[in-house]
């Protein structure tokens, strides 16, 4: 289906509203995509886009997606941090595909994807 008009958008909104009524959120995650010049050049936009897409597809309502600048780990860009309370996991070398896997494994099932962790803070060390 092609979304070509404001009317189409309005219809999608109504459908979405019906679906979200049935769902209740659990975890409060904050996902940060690092989008300095280095991040953007390495593909952070595609990563962020994939994350937003996956969250929409899964209808996750309690995830906040935001962005930050360069943190000096330019060679590990694109970087994504997943935060929940005191816990902060920084993932590096993320592709859109890996980002989708992080959503499924970490945000939905609570399993940190160890292979791509650059740094972990809080209770998460394991």
């Amino acid at each position, binding site marked *: 289906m092609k979304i070509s008009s*404001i009317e189409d*958008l309005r219809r999608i*909104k109504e459908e979405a509203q019906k679906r979200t009524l049935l769902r209740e959120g659990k975890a409060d995650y904050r996902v940060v995509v690092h989008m300095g010049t280095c991040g*953007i050049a390495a593909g952070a936009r595609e990563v962020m*886009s994939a994350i*937003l897409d996956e969250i*929409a597809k899964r209808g996750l309502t309690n995830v906040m997606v935001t*962005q930050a*600048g360069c943190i000096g780990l330019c060679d590990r860009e694109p970087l994504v941090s997943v935060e929940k309370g005191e816990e902060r996991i920084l993932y590096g070398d993320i592709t859109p595909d890996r980002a989708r896997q992080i959503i499924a494994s970490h945000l939905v099932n609570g399993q940190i994807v160890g292979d791509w962790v650059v740094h972990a803070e809080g209770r998460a060390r394991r």
Partner: protein
Amino acid sequence: MKELSLHILDVVENSLRAKAKKVRISILEDTRENRLELVIEDDGEGMDEETLKMVRDPFFSGQGKKVGMGIPLLDQLTRQCEGNLEILSEKSKGTTVRATFQRDNLDLPPLGKLADTLFVIMASHPEVELEFIHRIDDCQWLFNSKKIEEELDLTEENRGVLLPAIREWIEYQEEILKGGIGNEDK
């Protein structure tokens, strides 16, 4: 950067970091004059003259880092493409970045996924009013994020689901524009 729209995202990141509340992106293409002009205006903190003099230096950064590549890369690109980069800024008023290019220059990267750039900005900064205009000769399309939000009555709950749909809508508008068909839709 592989796409012009990545440069746009990068410059808008600067605006957002300068606490802009409103950002206007204009892409003005003139096929007869063979020019492409990219203008990004914001109402952020702005820069003083001293800072403004240094922004093209890759070893200057406004964020306490040792390097800052965003503006230098865009500056280099405009020069490669027979254009120039003009930055106007006034403290506490805002900044305007105007980049011009020779439209068919071989070194000019494609516009790329413009919808993704706008989508990412809208998703991560819901509080910012984003205005966008893309003109090719006598055809143009434009949108204002706040107007769309009002029109669709976007809330925190339905935002996540609706923004990907808005991205598709933007893609469609871009296709129409490139197809050379005038478009009256808002």
